[in-house]
């Protein structure tokens, strides 16, 4: 009797151990291919990237924020009265904030005079080597094969390690319940819950149905250009081939994929 109970416990123990090991095995040796049919209209890219052409932005009407507003309404971004709680996916900053350490009096003069002192658009850089993905303890943020760094709002535990890791300040926590602060809800895109991190997703939901990112579409001056860097005939490649461009903090090795022409 004792002998059989002992054996039973052994087997039970081993089974529990086996089930416990499954996630570990999955993490090391899982095949994560999703199985669903893509929209035939979908835009397919191998390495999505954005070029911010500040020279084109010159034609913008005064105080133009079309790209920001388009993004905010497309993604149900709440408008919090307290700047401490703010959520921003794409926003405007001064040259010295977008490119700290790269100021000098002459480039400041160039930005002020030749670029009319217009703000620079900043957003998630969808890095090729993203530190936010590296640090996430639950793989709630990950890099898709087409280069877009996305979030799983249903898995994020809100530890904010990714916010510490991002060298571009591109990440936001929902410090409060965002839903009461959404001006007009867009039923096409999910709202988020309190306590999870979010950021720009290069409009992966729009690419999937054949549309360009909301900010790109909203810019009447074509200052934001989006496309596939692996495609040598793409507009982004053409711009980067013909004009010198810079990236934000390339020295950190993150390989950011938002390029600036100024």
């Amino acid at each position: 009797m004792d002998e059989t109970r002992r054996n039973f416990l052994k087997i039970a123990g081993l089974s529990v151990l086996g089930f416990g090991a499954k996630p570990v095995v999955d993490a090391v040796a899982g095949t994560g291919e999703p199985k669903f049919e893509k929209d035939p209209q979908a835009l397919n890219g191998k390495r999505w990237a954005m070029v911010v052409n500040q020279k084109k932005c010159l034609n913008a009407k005064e105080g133009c924020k079309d790209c920001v507003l388009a993004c905010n309404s497309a993604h149900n971004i709440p408008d919090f009265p307290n700047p401490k709680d703010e959520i921003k996916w794409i926003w405007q900053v001064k040259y010295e904030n977008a490119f700290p350490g790269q100021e000098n009096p002459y480039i400041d003069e160039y930005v002020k005079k030749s670029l009319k002192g217009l703000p620079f658009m900043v957003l998630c850089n969808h890095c090729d080597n993203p530190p936010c993905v590296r640090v996430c303890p639950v793989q709630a943020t990950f890099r898709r094969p087409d280069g877009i760094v996305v979030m799983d709002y249903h898995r994020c535990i809100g530890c904010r390690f990714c916010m510490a890791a991002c060298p571009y300040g591109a990440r936001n926590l929902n410090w409060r319940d965002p839903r009461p602060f959404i001006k007009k809800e867009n039923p096409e895109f999910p709202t988020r819950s309190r306590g999870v991190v979010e950021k720009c997703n290069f409009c992966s939901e729009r690419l999937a149905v054949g549309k360009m990112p909301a900010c790109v579409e909203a810019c009447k001056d074509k200052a934001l250009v989006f496309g596939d860097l692996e495609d040598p005939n793409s507009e982004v490649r053409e711009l980067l081939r013909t004009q010198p461009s810079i990236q934000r903090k390339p020295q950190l090795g993150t390989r950011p994929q938002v390029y600036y022409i100024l």
Partner: protein
Amino acid sequence: MLEKALRGNKSYFAWIGFLLILVGMGFGFYLRQLGLGLGITGMSRDVSWGLYIGQFTFLVGVAASAVMLVLPYYLHNYKAFGKITILGEFLAVASVIMCLTFIVVDLGRPDRAFNVLLYPSPNSVLFWDMVVLNGYLFLNIFVGWTVLEAEAKSAPPPKWIKPFIYLSIPWAVSIHTVTAFLYAGLPGRGFWLTAIMAPRFLGSAFAAGPALLILICLFLRKYTRFDAGWQAIQSLSKIITYAMVLSVFFVLCELFTVYYSQIPEHMYHFTYLFVGFHGHSGLVPWMWASTILAAIALILLINPNTRNRTGTLAIGCASVFFSLWIEKGIALVLTGYIPSPLETITEYHPTLPEIGIVIGVWALGFLVLSILYKVALSVKLEAA
């Protein structure tokens, strides 16, 4: 043995009751945070970790310091530590419990905390921190309890416990190293991006933890029948002195590299911390308080005359503890965010509920510590 915690005099129960009230108050505030979100704290988009993670970081050090007793006692057979090694181990238990609680109260979605186990991510230092902290908690409860139980039965500790004791030594180093790696591996945060972070953490840990332990021993000697022994306290005070000297030296190394190289993204943080930056100086008084306390501590501890006198030793140890509490518990985390990666400055001011939760978690730690110490001291006094 746990039943020994249920017997005690009036002041013991008054103390336990006081701690329970504080825990209850903290829990009340935490319920509010659960309802409204982390928005009720002072943390923001720019300063996204605050007091919670600061306390966590400091307490990992206090936990790791148990090794300063375990190592001399078990590895070098240093008998003087025989009476207090258990106090070090139980201090580690209480500290790790506080660490884990601080992590949980800091989560935006604590209901999903177990995702860390469901989707193990070896890439993430936080995953490894979870592994080493829980392992260390287990080791210290297990070792401390087993050895104490043997003592209660007037028997030598079982032989099979030895491997666990030896394992706990490198494990103590690992918890603070891994915690330092949380910070030291982030590309965009110049304040934290320094290879000396882990050694610095260990230096401050081996000063702050034993300093608290000496204060506790002096308290116990005065108000209970338990005497840790002057030799043990003396040896511990020398360990604190060396560790504090190293800790200060490591900070000076940082200051040299940062101010001699003059690389802005490293330098601006230290400037903000010590003298203020672009008119923002929220942490300056704190940092100078920490610096002055460190100086007092070094003067009182290096000089053998003041180190050997109970009164001045106590002041020295308290100075070590509070100096490092400011350095690790407040300055280290916050300054990493100021200025932000876009070189803007958002300062951080903890809110009342946030401070209430912090006090509640500390009270929880002291509650665990008091109960464990009550058991340990009862066993020791009965055995004596």
